[in-house]
């Protein structure tokens, strides 16, 4: 407990700076792979590339016609992929800020998008109850695979090397194992808002709309722990694990950030980060640094 106590001391709780520039709500903020830069997107239909350690706005990407809901950068930092309410997925060139391709196929808003390991496939999840995979290497803008077993809007998608894991409002987290050719359905009984993976990829963290974050064992589907105390009832909000998998971080609709100890699930830290709903949290891949974004239009860097 002492070790976790000291670890809890090192949790990012002090605000280093605030990245301002977005007009209106910021819907997602994401570190890039090495944590040197971050991407944000929001209701002002732009993507922004920041250096969160200096607070500099590097670039702004404009092309979306409506709000941008999610963004992800490729592991080589050369490409971006973003999605939003305009039903399209934009595939960007980072340096030139130009759209390389637009992937079409979703019939409704796209909630989440991710690159795969090799940056060759973009997988997106949409309000149209589908998860679609697009091929970045071909010229076609049509999906190469459509998964339509969901019964309600798919809120979040995550990829491992061999799996597509998506959480839906129908209360299920579905893992599609490409290697095995199997679909594993974990029914949590409550709408799932956000699915994130532990760093060892053995556990799933599902943020449910009953104000509970649930930790599942990925291989067995067993419920390992539940984290409560925050409010999450009607917004798409992120939750994630810290980079050492020791704590669970989650936002709350009242602007608070919660840290839970992973194993026993007590709230080890809790502070008010924003004046409004915390929409997104991104934890630095190596350092004790965290980004939060909120409906109030601010992005804050915590160290």
């Amino acid at each position, binding site marked *: 407990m002492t070790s976790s106590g000291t670890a809890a001391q090192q949790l990012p709780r002090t605000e280093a700076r605030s990245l301002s520039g977005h007009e209106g709500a910021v819907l997602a903020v994401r570190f890039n792979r090495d944590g040197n830069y971050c991407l944000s997107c929001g209701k002002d239909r732009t993507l922004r590339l920041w250096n969160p350690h200096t607070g500099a706005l590097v670039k702004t990407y404009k092309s979306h*016609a409506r709000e941008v809901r999610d963004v992800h950068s490729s592991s080589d930092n050369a490409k971006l992929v973003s999605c939003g309410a*305009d039903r*399209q997925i934009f595939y960007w060139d980072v340096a030139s800020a*130009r*759209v390389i391709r*637009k992937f*079409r196929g979703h019939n409704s808003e796209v909630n989440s998008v991710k690159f*795969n*390991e*090799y940056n*060759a*496939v973009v997988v997106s999840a949409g309000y149209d109850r589908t998860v679609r*995979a697009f*091929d970045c*290497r071909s*010229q*076609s*803008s*049509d999906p*190469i*695979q459509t*998964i339509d*077993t969901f*019964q*309600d809007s798919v809120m979040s998608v995550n990829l491992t*090397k*061999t799996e597509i894991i998506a959480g839906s*409002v*129908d*209360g299920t987290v579905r893992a*599609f*194992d*490409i*290697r*095995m*050719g*199997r*679909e*594993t*359905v*974990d*029914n*949590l*009984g*409550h*709408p799932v808002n956000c699915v994130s993976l532990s760093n060892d990829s053995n556990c799933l963290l599902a943020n449910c709309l009953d104000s509970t974050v*649930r930790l*599942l064992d990925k291989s*067995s*589907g*067993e*419920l390992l722990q539940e984290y409560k105390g925050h409010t999450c009832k009607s917004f798409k909000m992120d939750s994630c694990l810290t980079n050492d998998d020791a704590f669970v971080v989650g936002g709350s609709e009242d602007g608070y950030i919660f840290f839970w100890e992973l194993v026993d699930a007590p709230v080890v830290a809790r502070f008010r980060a924003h004046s409004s709903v915390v929409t997104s949290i991104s934890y630095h891949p190596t350092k004790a640094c965290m980004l939060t974004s909120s409906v109030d239009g601010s992005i804050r860097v915590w160290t």
Partner: protein
Amino acid sequence: MGVDSDDEDLVVYGTPIEREEDTSARKRRAVAEAGQLRALPAWKQEVRDEEGRRRFHGAFTGGFSAGFYNTVGSKEGWTPQTFTSSRKNRAELTKQSLYNFLDEEDIKDMGGNALETSQQYDTFGFTAAEYARKQASKEQKERPSAIPGPIPDELVVPTTNSIGVTLLMKMGWRQGRSIRDSHADSLYESRRNARKAFLALSGAKDDEDQDQSAENPSLDKAVVGSVEEIPVSGNTPVYVLHPKQDFHGLGYDPFKHAPEFRDRKTLQKSRERDHKRNDVSMRGNLMISNSGHYAPGFGIGALEELDVEDEDIYASGFAYEQTEVDIEPSKAASDSNYKLDDRKRGFYLSFKIASNSEYKLERFLPPEIPDDFDAQHKFPTPVQSAEKFSDSAPLEVPPPEDTSLTLLIDGCAAMVARCGKHIEDFYKEKSKTNPQFLFLSGGDGCDYYMRKLWEHQQKHIGQQRHDSAKSKTSFDKLTAENRGKILGERPLDRTTKLHSPSLSAKEAVQLQSNLIDTFVKPISIDGLPESEKPFSNDPAKQVRFEQFLRDKYKGGLRAANVTPTSTMSEADRARERLDFETAAEAIEKGKGKKVIDPSSLFSLPGMNEQRFVVATQPESSVVIQDEKPIYPQREQFEWRPSPILCKRFDIVDPFMGKPMPVRRPRSKMENLIFMTESNKGTKDEVESSSRSSQHASMEAAIFSDDSDDDVDEILSNQPVDPVKTSEGANMALNRLVAEDFLESLGKELGLEVPPERPHVSSKPEKLSAAGASLPSQDERMTTALTKVNENQCSIGMVQVGNINEDAPLASAETLGMKYEKQENRTEKNRSRPMHLQSQNHSPRSDSSSERHRSWKRRSHRHIRNGTPESESSGERHRSRRRKKSHSRHRKGRSRSPDSDTPSDTQHERKRKEKRHRRTYTSDTDSSDHEHTERYKSSSRRSSDKDRSRKRNIHHKHRRKDHVDYS
């Protein structure tokens, strides 16, 4: 690109998002070509500008940027001379004159012959005037005058008349007259003269002007002449008759369809002019009032001339206006003021909104949202908790006289209470015509049914007996006692007294079980406190209950004959088992609830429902080994990633080279959806079974292996007429599965499901119905028999794994894809609740849920087994042979008295179930057993339509058989 072809099929509205690639396509092409060009030899390269246009031309084809923006060589530009060798044919020297380089004006200036109108046809005299001017200037050049510079135009007047004037003059026109028809009548003439006289009178100056203008030569005269009778007060000639004074667009006539307004307008204008003029003189007023009198209503526009016919002789029209004009103040008023005033007085015909307009804008109301619509996603609760449990108990009703009916109602009520309302609906629908089931829809025994249902529900929900449940309405204040009651606790004193003797024995049991599953999650009986002994008033029963719980939760080996309690009848045992089930569930729920904050539980009056919902919360501590926790639930399905996806993920395609499998339904319930009418089967089953219900020994069927003469669940074949279509076969399959389910229901209720008589002649037909086109019938069958006889055993063994799959393959290959799709959907939508339910209720592990599960397992295995097999060639051939083998089996079976074969298969099935429960019985006969299983299921694949038709006949047989049994 693929997008474009897509877009052609779509109806697009709105502005499409422009693709960057397309906009600068030419530029890109230029860039791309630039790269290619560099590879070309120098003489083939082409220089282009940044827009991709060719910029340089050869020396002989125009040179740099030939012509005006590359017009050289084009149609508009000049054609460069082509080079011809002067060696053989010398290029002829074209004689170039100065005129080649001059345009018309230059030539004219040089005094050459320019093309111009001859003087004879100089209609308007322009040429003449020009000529005269030229002459004058020439003259002036020749003899310079005192005034330098060109002569002013006014002084130079052409000397000839234009051809038009000449013609007119020849026709009798004289200078100074208007060009008019000569038939103008006397009235007109006289009026004109009078006006002229008046004009002359009004001022000599005017007259002079007139004369002057009359003297003016041709052009002016020609124009003025036609307008002459319009009074001109000024001395400038009027060129524009109706100058534009409004702010409308050119050519726009606001009064196009309403000339009367135009009249008003002109009137108003003239009035305005009047006022201005009033100050000056009265003459204008007179004039205008004169011309203002004309009959209303005839389409006279402001631009039309007033003619004689238009003038109102009687001058009745708008005389009052005149008076008004007089009254009005003479000061100049602005236009807007006028309008305002006019409107005030109602001069204008004004518009007002019609009281009822014919034109109606078609509007559509938004779709009506039902009151009970909840925008939140709904999750299936274990039992349909939407079902309302009435607060007040139905009246106690004496059971109907017919004991079998009582039994039926009892069982049905228990079933419905356990499984939910949909079962009742299902029964209701299936047995509409059956008099036995009239109690469902308000017939005989309805009241009793309602009462029974309520009781069962209470039992099901609550942790107490139904009589104490009556007091549940007074839960306003929660005392410890009340809570104890709700949770099924008994008052302390009584429990200690009653249960002290059995405590030690129980502890021993607990210890044992603890030892068995150290390292696994605690099982339910561990936490069973003394207070939760629902059958404490009947010690024997309590013991049995505990035994039951042990069996239920522990797993492991089970004594072969657990409770053949000699004193109890089979029906009693079945009922007791049901009781145990409910009690066990209640205990479990009660335990789950203790962990939950009780205040959230009892705050609502509709507590029963609340309890159901809350109980679905995952309680990892109460997770029972045998049973899945309610949430999270894990299910696994087959999923096919597309090959390209696998490639992109750098993974070997798990389905490489395998054809798309025809997916089979994963549960029975989804088939019920397709079922149309298997009602008769149900009805008869239940009917007959209710008669012979004392045979039913459910417990024996479930717990013991050696009870052979109990529920005969084998559905054997039925006589059928040949079914022609493959759809029919498909349907039949669905119905069969449904019937299987029904049968299991019946079994669960402790009722016997009658076996169906095999019928020899039917089989080949059925098989032919299943897809192939075996012509027919007995002789075919016999040949099949003899042929396949020797090797069919092995074939049967090999192929059994595949039977369920092949049926639709063989029968409805064409339907396959469609069917699959549909199935998937329906499964998603409908069967999930059923799964859920079955899992939640699986304390009774041998009940329908277990069967569901085992069925599911089977189907999964089918998929596994079936896929590789279906790869192999000769599919059709094999399936046909299989059919034959089946027919043979069936034949054999039908010959044998059904006392042995069915019981045998029953035996097998039981064993199988045990295996599924992970009890490790010997597996020696597994293949054989599977074979029979498959065989059963396949043999059931017949068309039910015919079955139901012939059911009556068989019914008799069955009766007889039952009698034999007993």
